[in-house]
Every structure is written in C-alpha cells, then in structure tokens.
C-alpha cells in the first residue's frame, strides 16, 4: 500500500512541479530562452506573499491576489529592461544575464529576510494540514489536490488563451517569426513583455503553493528551476500539457525514491531525468531549437 500512497503523493506533487514548469515553458516557447532566474523569481513572489500575509494577517491566498499584480509588473519591467537587451546580444547573453539576475535576487532576499527558513503552511490553516484519509496508508492532502487543480486550471487557461484569444494568436505568431509579426503590425517587444509578465505571475503562484506545501528560504530558487526544467524535458518541450505529465512523472519518481530513504527523493528525480535524457526520446530533443 505504501507504493500506491507514494504514487498518489507523487501525482499531487506533480501538480506543484507542473506549475513551476508552466512559466518556464511559456517563456521558452515564446522567446526561446531558458530563464535561469525562474526559480528565484518564484521565491521572490513567495516572500512577497509571505510579507503581505504576515503583516496584514490574511490568508496566503488573499495575499497572493494582492501580490500578483506586483509580480506581473515585475515580469513586464524585467523584459523591457534586461531581457529585451539580452535577446539582441546573441544566444549566450540571456543565459548570462538571467543567471546574474538569479544570483542578485537570491542574495538580496538573503540580505532582507535572513537565511531563516519559513513556511506559509501555518497561515493557510486547515487547508495545508488537512487531508482525506482513505485508508491506513493512503491519505490525500487538501493542499495537494488544490495545487494539482490550480495547475490544471492555469495550464488550461493558458492553452485557451493561446489558442482562442487574439492576444494568444499574437504570442504564437511572434514566437514563430517575430520579424514577420512586426510586418503585420504586431509589436514583438510588447508581446514578449506580456508573456514574461504572465510567466512571472505563474511563477509567483507556484512559489506560493511551494511555501504552503513545505518550507522555503532565499536559496530555494535554483532547485525549483531544476525541477521545472526536468518536468519540461520529461514531458516534452513545447507542449503545455506535457509539462503536467512531466511534473507528475518527476513527482512520482521523487516519492518512490523517498520510500527507500527520504534522502533519495531528489536524487531519484535527477536520475530519472538523466535516464530519459539518455533514451531515444532524449535524442529527439536535439531537433528542438533553443537559444
């Protein structure tokens, strides 16, 4: 029964990873860059939510609603200032600048918030601690279900936006061919800025759920970036629903690893990722272009 419990927990954990992967995948799909500061931006959002939640004594979910507009603006400005210039600099530049940005965010958070580990689980109340007890070994946590449901809603919403709205069409057109998009009147940099804003907003949601789900501190960002990337690769680049699959596979890999020994959980995830990279499926990744 512990196996089934592990799989179920992994499934729920996958929702969290899918949320992290979603923002990374969006930026990669539209701008062809991997934002190395993605995890750190999510953690920045989590700290913002934490600050609002603790100083205004509100539930993290309300705090998230207040924090989202701020983080959307942060993403928008980030593209307008740093990322747009990086794109002009060549294929290496976005990696170098986003890495530098990640270091700056991590250490700025460290300076402001100290290395203390925090959590939003307490502030979320019963939602973070309660669960449905299905059997002696199998329980399903409220927060796990909520996270997975949020991931599905966010992914679905994003997919709908891309396919059905004019804004989404512009994003897809710009992603394919920014120069021709400009020739039909679509301003590439404005499209990119909006995409970055959305990606950072989704990252903030992901960071908040991470904070409720477990603990976080200033240095939590990089690991989430790695998980997000692993989920994207496992699920297949360029497919939004693939990130959900990838997140779930990663989550299950980790929870099954944990059944052997809690120390093995993250390692198991990495090994599954590397195994998939080594497989024929991994070789097909070569055909995807990237910056």
């Amino acid at each position, binding site marked *: 029964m512990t196996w089934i419990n592990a799989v179920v927990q992994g499934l729920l954990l996958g929702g969290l990873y899918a949320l992290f992967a979603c923002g990374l995948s969006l930026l990669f799909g539209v701008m062809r860059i991997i934002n190395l500061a993605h995890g750190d931006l999510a953690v920045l959002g989590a700290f913002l939510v934490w600050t609002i939640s603790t100083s205004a004594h509100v539930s993290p979910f309300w705090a998230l609603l207040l924090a989202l507009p701020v983080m959307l603006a942060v993403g928008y400005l980030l593209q307008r200032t*740093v990322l747009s210039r990086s794109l002009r600099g060549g294929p290496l530049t976005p990696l*170098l600048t986003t890495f*530098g940005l990640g270091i*700056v965010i991590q*250490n700025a958070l460290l300076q402001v918030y100290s290395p203390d580990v925090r959590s939003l689980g307490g502030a979320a109340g019963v939602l973070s601690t309660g669960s449905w007890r299905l059997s002696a070994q199998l329980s399903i946590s409220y927060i796990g279900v909520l996270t997975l449901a949020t991931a599905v809603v966010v992914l679905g919403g994003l997919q709908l936006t891309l396919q059905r709205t004019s804004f989404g069409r512009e994003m897809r057109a710009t992603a394919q061919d920014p120069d021709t998009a400009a020739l039909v009147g679509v301003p590439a940099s404005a499209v990119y800025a909006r995409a970055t804003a959305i990606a950072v907003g989704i990252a903030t949601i992901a960071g908040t759920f991470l904070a409720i789900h477990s603990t976080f501190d200033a240095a939590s960002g990089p690991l989430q970036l790695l998980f997000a990337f692993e989920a994207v690769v496992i699920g297949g680049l360029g497919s939004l629903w693939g990130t959900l699959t990838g997140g779930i596979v990663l989550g299950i890999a980790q929870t099954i690893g944990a059944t052997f020994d809690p120390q093995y959980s993250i*390692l198991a995830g990495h090994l599954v990722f590397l195994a998939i990279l*080594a497989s024929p499926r991994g070789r097909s990744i*070569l055909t995807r272009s990237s910056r």
Partner: protein
Amino acid sequence: MSASPAQPVRPDSEQPMSASPAQPVRPDSEQPMSASPDIRPLWTVRRSGTRGAATGLLLFGLALFAVPYLFQANVVQQLTTLFIFVILAVMWNALAGYGGLVSVGQQAFIGFGAYATIFLAQHGVSPYLAVVLAALASAVLAVVVAPLLLRLRGGQFAVGSWVVAETLALLVALDEDLGGGTGVSLRGLNVYAPNMRRAYTYWITLAFVLVLLGLVFFMLRHRVGAALQAIRDDEEAAASLGVRTAPLKFGLFVLAGFGCGAAGALTLANTLFIQPQSIFGIQWTAYLLFMVLVGGLGTFEGPILGAILFFLLQNQFAQQGAWYLIGLGVVAGGFALFLPRGLWSLLTDRFHLRILPFGYDLYRPAPVIKES
C-alpha cells in the same frame, strides 16, 4: 582580372611576404605571375602580436617557480588561490567563449576532482599523485557525461549541466566514507611540513596552469583554433563551411572537465578541507561568470585578467557576504549586456594592443613599384 597566385600566403612568417624570394601574392596586379619580382604586393597577411611576447610570458611563467624561495608562505598560498581562479576562468572561457557552451554546472567537475583526490588518498595513493589522477578522472567523467549533455543546446545545456552537478553532490553526500554531508579533509598531506606543503601545492598548481594555458594557446594557433573561433562567431556558418563542430565541442568539454577537476583537486590541496555544499556549490559558476565576462569572453588574455581582478575583489570584499555576491551578479550581468568582450577588449581596442600571436592582421607595406 588578376591572375591566381602561384604560392599561398604563409601566415606564420614574421616578415612581410615581399622579403621572401618566392613569388608573393599580388591580388590586384594586372601582371602575369612571371613578371618582375620588384613589384611588391598591396596587402600581406601577418601574424598579430610577436613571438617575442609569447616567449617572454613563458619565461615569466617559469620564473614564477622561484616564488616559494623568495616569498613568505602566506604569499605562496594566495598565489596558489589566484592560479586556481586562472585555471577555472580559462576553462570556462574555452567552453563558453570558443564553444558557445554556457555551462552553469562546472562545479560538478570541481567537486568531482576534489572528491576523487580524497578517494584515491584514502586508498593509499600519494596525495599529489592523487591530484593528477583525479584531474584525469574528471576528464573521464566528462567523456561519460558528454553524450548526454552535448545533445542539448543553449539554456537546456546550461540547466542540464547544473542537474549533473547537483546529482553528483547528492551522491557524494550519501557516501559516509567520503565524509557525507559534513565534509572531509585530505590527511595525506599532513606528512609534509606546512611550508613545504604550501610550496609543493604551489608548484603543482603552477604546473597545471602552464600546461593548461599552453594547451589552449596551441589549440588557438592551430587550425583547431580557427575552427573554434568560427564556431564562437557563428556556429551555423561554421558548420556550413565544413567545420566539424561536434568533435570540437566534445574536445572542449573534456578539456574543461579536466581543468575544472584539477582546480577542484588543487583547491582541496590548498584548503585541506571540503564539504559537498561548497565544493559543488553554484557560487563557483557565479565566480566563473564574473571572471570571464569582466575579463573578456572569447579572448585568451581576458580570463586571466578577470581572474586577477576577481582575486583582488575576493580578498577585499568576500566578508560582505550577500552584498558582495549581489555586486558580482550585477557587474557580471552588466558586462554581459553592455561589454561582453570585457575589459580586455577595451585595452586591445583602445591601444591596439596585440600581445600574443593569435589572429592575423592585414598589413600594407610601403608601395615600391619599379618600372621594368
């Protein structure tokens, strides 16, 4: 149109072509090749820099071996640290500046080199021999990992390399024999008196620096170097010209694995104690980025300059902790955006300084055209 030249330009000669008795290249001449050799070519190709500079630097490098006899142990240790930074910067620059591969996971090899040294020392190998073997083992690791990572491009390669680093760190931390999460020290070095130990560590570090710099130097002068610089400038164009990018990138990756592994092993020999979190830590990549971007990405001398600068900054500001790292990140990012070829490019462009003989210059000797 002008006739085709009988002889190709010989790029390695120091003299303008007209001094040689063989037929020079005459790109714009109207005359057939059998005409008078009194007419000099309009343009010739010459190596930039001078051979003298290269030999001079080599002699300086060899002279550095004398440092432990002339200076205190403290200076010796500081220089060892500086040399380790130089190795790391040159290696990362080789990967990113010439191969276009931005790795944020070189700490995988740094840590592996250090822990391989521990492992070998624990199994009876003499510590300094263990350092050398550990560097070779890191090269082997790079060979193993390369097929996995080199199928990735750009940002995917970057994050993929980071995953490899994290995986290694976790595996090492699980091994109690290697000290687990708390760390381990290189006890084999205790047989030496501290002064001698520092001197030996210094010498072996200096030897690695000279060997690695020499490797990169000859690689750049050789045809391989031209191919690498072509990849750096435009990979697709280079591939379309027949440059075989895959073996070159593989070679660079293995070289960087070897060099970073050596750096890790030497760091262990220099500091005697390591922990997984720090030796496999991402801050190494932050340092590498800073050194290479500020010094000059894609140049030979740039990383050395960057390493020296970083060494000075590290001594001065490392105690500032988070602020120091923020500063590093901002400066590195700023250079990436605004001055990617780094401070070295400022010097070369401003003063037309070409010290070492890479690259070629077009040279126009004074026209002397005699009527025949």
